[in-house]
């Protein structure tokens, strides 16, 4: 349902795309025909006809992205979405730049200017805001102005390899950027993207989708469009200038070039071999400031807001380092534009102990010379040293020292970036990697948190279903959730033995009415002898959990609709099997002062949750908070089982008190299946018994055959 006003400028949804063969790898023509039937509601299906939904994939590469928030017709963000497909799954990220708005004087529309001016003498001075056009998809991967940068798009969910039908779900976070380098997670959003024919100019019109963007409260907050542009993720230019007598670092001598290396990164790279006669200002050896000045003087005319151009200057020697440097990082940066240029020294004599190239002039040793140029360019792209392997961001000294007689330097050079650096080059926010944006040393994988590498794979045949025990609860009450994992396939599957919140496999999050997300996972780490079990076809595991607090505080701390998401993960052959389901619960406001006071106490006492999880008599603050809840007629039914469990359990020298425990229970007591089972056992052991079932008792944990 759209919440957009009728006067919204957002265009209606275009027609659905007819399926095409390219959309469904491996699909036969017959299946494609059936898929046509499946998406055409006007066609009559024949009895017994099997309809195969269309399988589609989200194409890897760079997509042109546009996001228009609702209710602000002059606000529009353009940018790119980078979709990477790799052996571990998918990773996607993006960047958004605000489209400029300019003000134009209102044109004089009256055929009688004099008359109009008489009526409104300021007519010629009136201004009309104009939203400029966005980037043309025909121009390839867009380069947008640094000053217009607004958001990093951290994609959190996207279709795994293939999806069914004409739509797919995209989940993402928007991190707001404020110069020089401040990031704030502003919103967590989802969009149900619908494939449709892209407007003119897109290289592959069928790889285009649009969808309404919704916030955590399921309210439409904008509209997103995305159209595929390129198999590359980013693009740049590398310009190489040299002094007379210095070699151009263009290749390794064993087949690696700028283009081949950057192709592997996913950057579309143009190499501009420029001047070879840059004058030496003060002899053979250059200072950082001299290299910076030479870059500004000799670099081709460039606007870093329309081109990502990195400058490589090859000189004979460098004052401040033997081989190479990313000099453009601050002190020597006379134009205050960081990470534009690097320098490399062709006339350094390679040290003894550097394998087969010891004693050579650096510029004549193509492999280490070219490698150093790539290393320095990595710094210009925001990367730091990385000794996790012998890739480009490791230092040459370390690689040379690691040479062996069998594999001497430089044959032990690894001609690639370490996977962490590859991910950074592909998914860092633009300001971290593009020249002339944030200073060297400012890039971070944590701020903003860059897109997760998607190691997750859905397991065909398994379904996770969560069901709140109560859909509506009073403020302050714990929320009990039933969890069911069912094998509806025809093969036995190895699955986690327990879906309890005490299991390492289970975690989740709660999104409150304002869109704030709070996570939860076990606070007790159990070592299980047999963490997995075989789930046969038709079988299911049922479990339940009670939620109060997570790492970020109370999970249900305000009234309103809360969205609960439960996820189950476990490792299968290096991949992460993943199942998830979500449900909503309604938290009602405090009904009176007594309820408000009790809710206040349990919501602000972290130990109340620990009493729920581990029991005992030692958490006095938590016990006091739960007692306050028990004193509230509204909350008592929701906390009685928790206190009963504590009283019915031995704690140090205190014996279980079955009588006091049982006295707390009545017909209104709310308890989950797990709680029911545990109380029945505890009270039985203590000489008591569980009274008749409460009004909201869940099924106990057990392996059952699904109906």
């Amino acid at each position, binding site marked *: 349902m759209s919440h957009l006003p009728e006067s919204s400028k957002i265009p209606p949804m275009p027609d659905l795309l007819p399926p095409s063969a390219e959309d469904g790898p491996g699909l036969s023509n017959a299946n494609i025909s059936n898929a046509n039937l499946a998406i055409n509601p006007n066609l009559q299906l024949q009895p017994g006809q099997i309809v195969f939904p269309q399988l589609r994939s989200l194409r890897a590469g760079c997509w042109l992205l546009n996001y228009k928030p609702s209710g602000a017709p002059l606000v529009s963000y353009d940018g790119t979405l980078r979709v990477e497909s790799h052996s571990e799954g998918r990773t996607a990220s993006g960047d958004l730049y605000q489209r400029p708005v300019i003000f134009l004087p209102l044109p004089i529309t009256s055929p009688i200017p004099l008359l109009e001016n008489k009526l409104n003498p300021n007519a010629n001075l009136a201004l009309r805001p104009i939203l400029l056009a966005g980037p043309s998809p025909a121009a390839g991967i867009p380069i947008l102005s640094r000053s217009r940068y607004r958001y990093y798009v951290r994609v959190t969910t996207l279709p795994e390899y293939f999806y069914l039908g004409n739509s797919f779900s995209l989940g993402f976070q928007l991190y707001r950027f404020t110069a020089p380098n401040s990031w704030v997670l502003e919103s967590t959003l989802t969009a149900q993207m619908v494939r449709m024919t892209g407007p003119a100019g897109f290289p592959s019109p069928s790889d285009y989708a649009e969808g309404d963007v919704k916030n955590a409260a399921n309210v439409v907050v904008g509209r997103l469009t995305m159209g595929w542009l390129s198999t590359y993720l980013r693009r740049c230019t590398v310009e190489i200038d040299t002094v007379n007598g210095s070699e151009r670092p263009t290749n390794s001598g064993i087949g690696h070039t700028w283009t081949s290396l950057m192709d592997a990164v996913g950057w579309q790279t143009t190499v501009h071999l420029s001047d070879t006669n840059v004058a030496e200002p003060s002899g053979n050896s250059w200072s950082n400031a001299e290299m910076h000045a030479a870059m500004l003087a000799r670099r081709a005319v460039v606007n870093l807001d329309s081109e990502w151009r990195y400058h490589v200057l090859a000189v004979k020697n460098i004052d*401040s*380092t*033997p081989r*190479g440097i990313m*000099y453009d990082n601050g002190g020597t940066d006379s134009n205050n534009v960081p990470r534009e240029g690097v320098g490399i020294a062709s006339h350094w004599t390679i040290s003894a102990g550097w394998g087969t190239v010891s004693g050579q002039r650096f510029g004549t040793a193509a492999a280490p010379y070219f490698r150093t140029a790539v290393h320095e360019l990595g710094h210009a792209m925001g990367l730091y040293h990385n000794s996790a392997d012998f890739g480009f961001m490791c*230092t040459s*000294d370390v690689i040379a020292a690691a040479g062996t007689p069998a594999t001497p330097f430089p044959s032990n050079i690894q001609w690639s970036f370490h996977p962490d650096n590859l991910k950074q080059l592909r998914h860092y926010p633009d300001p971290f990697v593009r020249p002339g944006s944030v200073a060297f040393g400012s890039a971070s994988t944590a701020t903003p948190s860059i897109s997760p590498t998607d190691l997750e794979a859905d397991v065909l045949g398994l379904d996770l279903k969560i069901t709140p025990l109560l859909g509506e609860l009073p403020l302050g009450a714990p929320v009990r959730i039933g969890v069911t994992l069912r094998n509806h396939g025809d093969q036995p599957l190895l699955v986690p033995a327990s879906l309890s919140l005490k299991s390492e496999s289970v975690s989740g999050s709660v999104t409150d009415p304002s869109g704030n997300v709070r996570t939860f996972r076990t606070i007790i780490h159990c070592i299980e002898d047999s963490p997995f079990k075989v789930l046969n076809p038709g079988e299911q595991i049922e479990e339940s959990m009670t939620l109060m607090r997570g790492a970020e505080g109370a999970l249900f701390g305000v009234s309103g609709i809360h969205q609960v998401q439960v996820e189950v993960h476990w490792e299968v052959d290096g991949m992460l099997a993943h199942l998830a389901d979500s449900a909503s619960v309604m938290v009602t406001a405090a009904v009176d002062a007594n309820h408000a006071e009790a809710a206040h106490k349990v919501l602000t006492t972290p130990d109340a949750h620990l009493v729920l999880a581990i029991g005992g008599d030692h958490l006095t603050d938590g016990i006091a908070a739960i007692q306050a809840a028990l004193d509230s007629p509204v909350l008592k039914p929701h906390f009685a089982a928790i206190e009963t469990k504590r009283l019915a359990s031995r704690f140090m020298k205190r014996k279980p008190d079955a009588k006091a425990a049982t006295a707390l229970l009545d017909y209104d007591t709310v308890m989950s299946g797990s709680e029911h089972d545990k109380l029945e056992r505890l009270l039985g052991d203590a000489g008591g018994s569980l009274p008749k079932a409460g009004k909201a008792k869940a099924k106990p944990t057990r392996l059952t055959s699904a109906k």
Partner: protein
Amino acid sequence: MELHEAQLSGNWHKNSQEQCAAGYAAHLHLQSNGLYVGSSEPAGTFTWWDQGTWALQGPGKLAISTANDEVVTYTYSLSDGTLTFTDPAGCRFSYRRAP
């Protein structure tokens, strides 16, 4: 010189809180082969001393390659297990020898 290099080799933990020293590694491992590895706190944050080379340049002078590959000469002193540096900007900070 070799004696001094032997004295400097090993693990060092920064024990200075000066703001000007924030960009230097929290932990420094000076290897006897002239290489070093620095690490920051919290892990993953940027440090100018992340990985590279170190070499004595003369009495009280130590050249260390930095995060952008520039080799910077620092003055240093070693006393009672404390290694004190002064960088070219005049920032003074120290490390304690660690096991």
